């Protein structure tokens, strides 16, 4: 019997992790559609869950897992398209499995009955979800109107898998509110904050969401636990800030770098950035996250990755790797969303585990997605005597060509400074730059269409600036623009980033490769016009003109 308890415990731990991975995968699919490999991975996880359920004689869970596995097989093989309905069904199935798994953990057996549990018992992953086995019934009465488009966002990556605590099981079903519901509301509210503030309907919706979120928080926090598999063992890396120790899950740490003079920093409207190995990544300070005074001694950069999004967390000290027994964050601390779990270190002192999803959620989609969102919007009509506008990121987009406008920006503009082998240094606005890669010159080949180089598995078309030449030996830098990911400007060297207070033309035609010649950093520098290097804009302007 003891052996069976151990097996059940292992099953719950492993299945909980598999479900969390599947939930994150499905949430990530909403933003970045998965390919066959992604669906195959999801299929394998579900296959394992189903097999283990069968071994442990848990027929109800096995039935739901089997149906989900069949659906994932169809998605993997391409015989089924992952529509919103299919994704909702899968999320509902995951919620059902999680509910039954928690029940097994609490009671040592499945809930009584056959087939999937009725919707009233299951903490819904989202309103109106339907499982592959059977459509769920109406949502709980406490969940707000699902017909409102603002309340139907994809489940955000930060959403914790939720299982109700034993206390919650005694709560009337109509009062149950899941963490996923609250997370969806928070996600919708965050999205609305990025909407146009002048839109009265958006403003009204945001106020409604604010009230709903506050209302749901009261119903949710005292009654639910953020995770079910506690206590569980995890490897963590200890870090320090202002003498306080915190832990980060090792599985989410991709790299630890000592910050030196080789790293470049930039402060943009969206926040701070740091260059690591030729790529610009959003950067946050642990001290700032903890609302402590900024620390000038943050000497280590931790590259965190979750769902293909990366973030650099700067800390003062990096400690040791430890294997800790994690437990839920105490209820009194749950209002602070920065903590994911708690534990006791080997020396007997308490330690809190930072919530990487919460850290990442502040800066994900930055900067490319935001820039692309701007790019998708037509240029806003400018008042006749507009005093100033922001840096020229939006006009770089492949928007319909418009005549040059003499409106200028006098705000500090971050510039990427580089040399192209000529005597005149070059600069380009940093907001237009998607990535800077360093590659050996020997990797560059030439075909009928021009230069070509394979970089990160993709074919890039390097473009040499007028008057410059392609390096034939050593290393070269490829500057990819956000809106032309398959083209790269060739730089012989990258000199860094400089904040320049300068008046730039808001919009320049594509046939004007140089925006301005000016003295910068002690040298006459040419500021490039990014529009001149965007193939879509060039062809559009040629057609127009």
């Amino acid at each position, binding site marked *: 019997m003891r052996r069976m308890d151990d097996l059940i415990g292992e099953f719950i731990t492993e299945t909980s992790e598999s479900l969390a991975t599947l939930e994150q995968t499905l949430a990530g699919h909403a933003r970045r559609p998965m390919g066959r490999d992604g669906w195959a991975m999801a299929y394998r996880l579900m296959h394992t869950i189903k097999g283990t359920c069968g071994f442990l004689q848990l027929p109800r869970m096995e039935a739901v897992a089997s149906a989900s596995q069949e659906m994932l097989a169809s998605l993997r093989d391409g015989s089924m398209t992952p529509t919103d309905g299919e994704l909702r069904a899968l999320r509902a199935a995951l919620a059902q499995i999680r509910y039954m798994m928690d029940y097994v953990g609490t009671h040592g057996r499945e809930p009584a009955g056959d087939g999937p549990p009725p919707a009233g018992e299951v903490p819904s992953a989202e309103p109106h979800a339907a499982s592959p086995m059977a459509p769920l019934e109406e949502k709980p009465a406490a969940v707000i109107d699902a017909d409102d488009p603002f309340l139907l966002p994809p489940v955000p990556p930060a959403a914790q898998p939720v299982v109700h*605590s034993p*206390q919650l099981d005694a709560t009337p079903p109509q009062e149950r509110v899941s963490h996923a519901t609250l997370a969806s509301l928070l996600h919708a509210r965050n999205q609305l904050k990025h909407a146009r503030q002048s839109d009265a309907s958006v403003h009204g919706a945001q106020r409604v969401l604010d009230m709903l979120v506050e209302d749901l928080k*009261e119903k949710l*926090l*005292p009654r639910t636990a953020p995770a079910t598999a506690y206590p569980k063992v995890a490897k963590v890396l200890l870090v320090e800030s202002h003498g*306080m120790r915190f832990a980060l899950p090792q599985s989410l740490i991709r790299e630890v770098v000592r910050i030196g003079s080789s790293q470049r920093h930039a402060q943009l409207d969206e926040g701070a950035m740091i260059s690591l190995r030729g790529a610009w990544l959003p950067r946050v300070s642990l001290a700032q996250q*903890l*609302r*402590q005074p900024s620390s000038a001694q943050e000497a280590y950069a931790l590259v965190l990755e979750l769902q293909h999004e990366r973030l650099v967390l700067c800390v003062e000290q990096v400690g040791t790797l430890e294997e800790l027994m994690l*437990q839920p964050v*105490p*209820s*009194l*601390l749950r*209002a*602070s969303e*920065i*903590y994911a779990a*708690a*534990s*006791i270190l080997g020396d*007997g*002192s*308490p*330690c*809190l585990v930072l919530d990487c999803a919460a850290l990442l959620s502040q800066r994900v989609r930055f900067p490319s997605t935001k820039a692309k969102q701007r790019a998708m919007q037509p240029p806003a009509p400018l008042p006749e005597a507009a005093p100033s506008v922001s840096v020229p990121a939006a006009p770089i987009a492949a928007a319909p060509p418009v005549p040059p406008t003499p409106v200028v920006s006098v705000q500090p503009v971050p510039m990427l400074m580089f040399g192209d082998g000529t005597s005149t240094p070059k600069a380009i606005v940093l907001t237009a730059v998607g990535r800077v890669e360093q590659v050996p010159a020997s990797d560059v080949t030439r075909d009928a269409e021009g230069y070509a180089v394979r970089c990160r598995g993709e074919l890039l078309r390097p473009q040499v600036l007028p008057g410059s030449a392609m390096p034939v030996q050593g290393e070269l830098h490829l500057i990819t623009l956000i809106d032309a990911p398959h083209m790269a400007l060739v730089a012989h060297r990258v000199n860094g980033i400089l904040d320049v207070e300068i008046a730039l033309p808001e919009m320049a035609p594509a046939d004007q490769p140089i925006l301005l010649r000016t003295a910068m950093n002690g040298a006459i520098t040419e500021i490039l016009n990014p529009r001149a290097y965007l193939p879509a804009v060039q062809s559009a302007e040629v057609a127009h003109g």
Partner: protein
Amino acid sequence: MANTAPSLLGTIPHVLFRLGKQAFAMPLAQVKDVARSPHITAVPNATPMVRGVTVLRDQLAPVLDMRVRFGLPASMDASRATVLAVDHEGERVGLLIDRVEDVLMLPPSLPSAHSKDPLWQGVVAGVVQREADTVLVLDVAAILDGALRR
């Protein structure tokens, strides 16, 4: 739930403690441990009344600064204070107080106290006079419920 049944003499033992000059009491049965000079680790981003976390009998526990809860200046030196360990909804919580003074035997029913001050509403189960002191008997569960909602 804590055992608050009266003893054979019809009284319930209470812990008498102080925050500044004010005397408080709470049922002894609710107190799982008394820790003097505990090491409290600060928790950034927590609500002001949460002083930090500590480990009480191998259990991690947030520490509620009762001075802040009742509008008094925070304990300047927590290392000289005392923590009462209580359990609330399955979790261990530490209550940071100035000092424990005594154990009182109080009758099951006490004169009630009402206040319009939000700080005191619903958290005082009764009032008892002890020599020159007015002792406020606390409803700890109500205090912790309120702290969770903040």
